[in-house]
């Protein structure tokens, strides 16, 4: 009888997924999340009464946007191509900066710790600043126009592309590298014949992937004067020419979806 009692104490009838301690830490985190969220919303001082007529405003906007102004297509054709050019050329420039930087930022190819830190710093800082913010800076340097946009796209992408290439370099198989080293090859030859062939598919895939993100990013560069379709979009919105806006948004949708499709297609071929 006593044996039976201890058993039922040690093995309770009801199954619980978590122990009491796990449960308490869990609730503790939930509490923190809810607290931060509620405090954020309260502190932002949101004017809730704006929501009262929001649906009327949105419906009004919607009705003004249709039908799109088809004749406007003649005006936006060139800016649309410019948007694609900015993304493509920007991604190309990225390659020349990100590729060497990735070798600095990868633990197994970096010459020394200082070079590694510099490489990491370049990757982190370029990635943390948004394309539009880079565009603000480059418009100040090069003046308004697509050149500022190309540099903005290039700088933002360096961190993204460089990080992924550096990770790929760190994960390479050491066998081929050691084999090339054993032939008495120089440092450069080891990189060229031992490391490069292993990371080339990743480099190519990452560039194409970033290109399709950059198409999306370069649609808004015009808002700060850095070229592309954004200029037309911003001026149409400011003139309340909503039938032009809907046409621009429609074309942007087509271009972005199409570029995403091409990027996915190319990446599936490379792998």
């Amino acid at each position, binding site marked *: 009888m006593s044996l039976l009692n201890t058993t039922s104490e040690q093995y309770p009838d009801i199954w619980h997924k978590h122990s009491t301690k796990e449960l308490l830490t869990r609730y503790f985190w939930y509490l923190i999340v809810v607290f931060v*969220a509620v405090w954020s919303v309260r502190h932002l001082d949101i004017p809730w009464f*704006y929501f009262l007529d929001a649906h009327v405003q949105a419906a009004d*906007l919607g009705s003004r946007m249709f039908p799109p102004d088809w004749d406007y297509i003649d005006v936006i054709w060139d800016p649309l191509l410019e948007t694609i050019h900015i993304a493509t050329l920007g991604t190309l420039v990225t390659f020349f900066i990100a590729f060497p930087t990735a070798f600095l930022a990868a633990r197994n190819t970096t010459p020394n710790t200082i070079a590694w830190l510099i490489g990491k710093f370049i990757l982190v800082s370029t990635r943390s600043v948004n394309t539009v*913010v880079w565009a*603000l800076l480059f418009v100040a340097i090069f003046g308004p126009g697509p050149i500022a946009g190309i540099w903005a796209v290039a700088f933002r992408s360096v961190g993204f592309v460089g990080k992924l290439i550096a990770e790929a370099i760190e994960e390479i198989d050491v066998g081929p590298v050691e084999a090339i080293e054993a032939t008495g090859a120089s440092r450069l030859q080891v990189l060229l014949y031992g490391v490069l062939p292993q990371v080339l598919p990743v480099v190519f895939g990452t560039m194409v992937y970033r290109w399709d993100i950059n198409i999306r990013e370069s*649609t808004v560069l015009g*808002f700060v004067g850095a070229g592309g379709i954004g200029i037309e979009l911003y001026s149409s919105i400011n003139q309340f020419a909503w039938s032009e806006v809907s046409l621009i948004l429609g074309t*942007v*949708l087509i271009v972005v979806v199409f570029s995403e499709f091409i990027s996915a297609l190319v990446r599936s071929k490379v792998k």
Partner: protein
Amino acid sequence: MSNVHPTVWHRPSLIENPWLRYGLTALALAYLFLSIGSLEIDWERVSKGLPRAASIFERMFPPDFSRWDLLVRGMVESLEMAFAATFIGMFLAIPLGLCAASNLVPRPVYLVARSIIVLTRTFHEVIIAIFFVKIFGFGPLAGVLTLVVASVSFIAKMLAEDIENMGPGQVEAIKATGASFFKLLLYGVAPQILPRYLGVSIYRMDANIRHSTVVGIVGAGGIGQTLSATFSRYDYDFSITILACIIIIVFFGEIFSNWARGRLR
């Protein structure tokens, strides 16, 4: 003989077919010339870029730390926008994500949900922000709503993909007990996708912090508004302070996000 066994070794190329390889290279070069030629570039202005960059760089130093209150207010607003938007987005994403999973809902519902996701994902945050600014006026409300839309679309897409890829065994087992659709979700679906859902939400918070720093450029609140103003007033010494702050905050956001997602597993 030499054709069969070449005496010189060549590295294997990324594209094996030589015609395709040289064809693509030629196309790429042709594109390069055409695109650079068609861009409207004011070369005279661009050539002044380097000295201008030097002068801007000079004016950035020493960084201006005297306007602390402005900086802190903007940064805090950006962070609050990111937190609020992630929290709201997390919950709104659940119904959309469920509707976008092809193995849970009827085809028409699936198609509608998927097109909402594609449509909202296509447009850049800044474009969405400008619309909310037109509807709700300037201020953080437009920014929060922008980030909510972006978060819902992102989290819902990931959620739907996870649901589509989950093991069917548990769902069928729960179904076999005669459970209702709601109970099926609660006991068959939720346990399988909850860790990934939380992970994606934490990742999205990190992304929202980044984006909350730019939506201000079109007037949707946060530090972006202040940053944009410093550029138009040539206050470059204050710009560099703001940029450094953004880099630090984003960096810590990324570290926190990686740490928290690591703990979930």
